[in-house]
């Protein structure tokens, strides 16, 4: 079973930038799985614009090799056609897989921790055809790296993260490199700081931003295909022991994208369900 999960985590592909099961739904966060913990996510992620709505659903799983190293994989399926710009924060039709390493972990008081996590993954085009500008491109895999740091306590959460994704070229076509970043603040009111056998709620304000480079098509850069955007919105996370439900929506604060190429993206939304299976296995006496 362990080998199967490892193989799946290494070779199957996915959206591992976000720690959906434990943190914000749009932004980068630091949590990784416990040793031998299996986490599974399934959800719906949507982007709506003037050219339609693009939905992505799928299932992702993570496995904790050690308390600080997690392999993850996510296999999405996309529905609808929004002709929207490239995004690495919102899942599309790409399969991704990779590993997250929590290289800084400071836990020196009750209920608080400061940590930083680095992740590296591969992004592979799924079997589904892209829409809009990307429908005409030959597709090749890419590499994604991201870094997140944060503070978590019983009352407050604060995470910052940034990532970069670069795709290989094929037949003189190339998807744009993407820079993504996020800042997330979370709060749990006093009344909700309850026992672990009760529902645990947190509210987040999620600020995200992305810049995509120009699309290369047939050896030439497509004019005005570079985009920049900043998004802000609330999300709520509810957890009971080993299940979590989270949802949120974002609206654009800033948008610089060619409307003739991409239309006008108006809203992003997400609803995610997670199951966390912790291990009771004990290794020594």
């Amino acid at each position, binding site marked *: 079973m362990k080998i199967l999960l490892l193989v799946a985590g290494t070779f199957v592909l996915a959206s591992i930038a976000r720690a959906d099961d434990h943190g914000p739904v749009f932004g980068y966060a630091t949590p990784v799985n416990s040793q031998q913990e299996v986490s599974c996510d399934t959800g719906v992620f949507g982007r709506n614009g003037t050219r339609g709505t693009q939905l992505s659903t799928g299932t992702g799983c993570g496995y904790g090799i050690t308390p600080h190293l997690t392999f993850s994989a996510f296999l999405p399926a996309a529905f609808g056609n929004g002709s929207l710009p490239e995004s690495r924060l919102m899942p599309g039709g790409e399969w991704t897989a990779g590993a997250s390493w929590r290289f800084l972990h400071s836990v020196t008081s009750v209920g*608080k*921790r400061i940590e930083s996590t680095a992740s590296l993954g591969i992004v592979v085009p799924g079997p589904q055809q892209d829409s809009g500008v990307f429908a005409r491109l030959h597709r090749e895999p890419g590499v994604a790296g991201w870094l997140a740091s944060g503070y978590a306590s019983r009352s407050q959460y604060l995470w910052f993260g940034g990532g970069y994704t670069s795709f290989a070229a094929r037949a003189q076509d190339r998807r744009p490199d993407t820079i993504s970043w996020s800042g997330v603040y979370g709060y749990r009111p006093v009344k909700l700081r309850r026992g672990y056998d009760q529902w645990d709620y947190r509210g987040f304000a999620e600020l995200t931003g992305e810049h995509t480079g120009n699309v290369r098509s047939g050896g030439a850069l497509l004019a005005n295909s570079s985009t920049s955007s900043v998004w802000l919105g609330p999300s709520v996370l509810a957890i009971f022991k080993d299940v979590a439900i989270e949802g949120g929506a974002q609206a654009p604060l800033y948008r610089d994208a060619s409307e003739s190429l991409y239309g006008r993206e108006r809203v992003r939304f997400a609803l995610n369900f997670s199951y966390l299976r*912790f291990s009771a296995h004990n290794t020594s006496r």
Partner: protein
Amino acid sequence: MKKTVAYFAFFASTLTAHAEYRHVDLTVFGMDCAPCAHAIHVSMKGIPGVHTVEVDLNTGLVSVGLNSGSSASIRQFNEAVERNGFTHKDATIVATGKITGTAAAPFFEVSGTEDRFALQPAAAPSDLAKLLGKTVTISGTLPLAPRGKVPDTLRYTSIAEAQ
């Protein structure tokens, strides 16, 4: 007060017991959410002999009760915390075992395990010379040891010969 009574009851119940840990309390650092506590709960319950686990997220206190005859070791409790990415402070224990060594340098061996601790009084010292070689029930504190290590000293608060 409730806790003192519970401890006393536990302590009294172990006077006729075998050698083992009967109760372990750990203050765990870094747990901020329900899944953190659930992970600790599942890990502790996975240790053979553990019958109750209570986790308080607001104080970080993890309270573990063990069955009579348990052979669980302190390393297993430490690992249950560390495998979930947390750390803990001192551990407060109630355990039954044998006093070995000498009156000047006594040790406490938790039978059924490989755990052996040098004894130091937390307050007024007991007369350990008369307990040498005997099975006792002891309560005390195991100080924090470096990650992956087991403490080598037990600061006892009470000690009594087991019947």
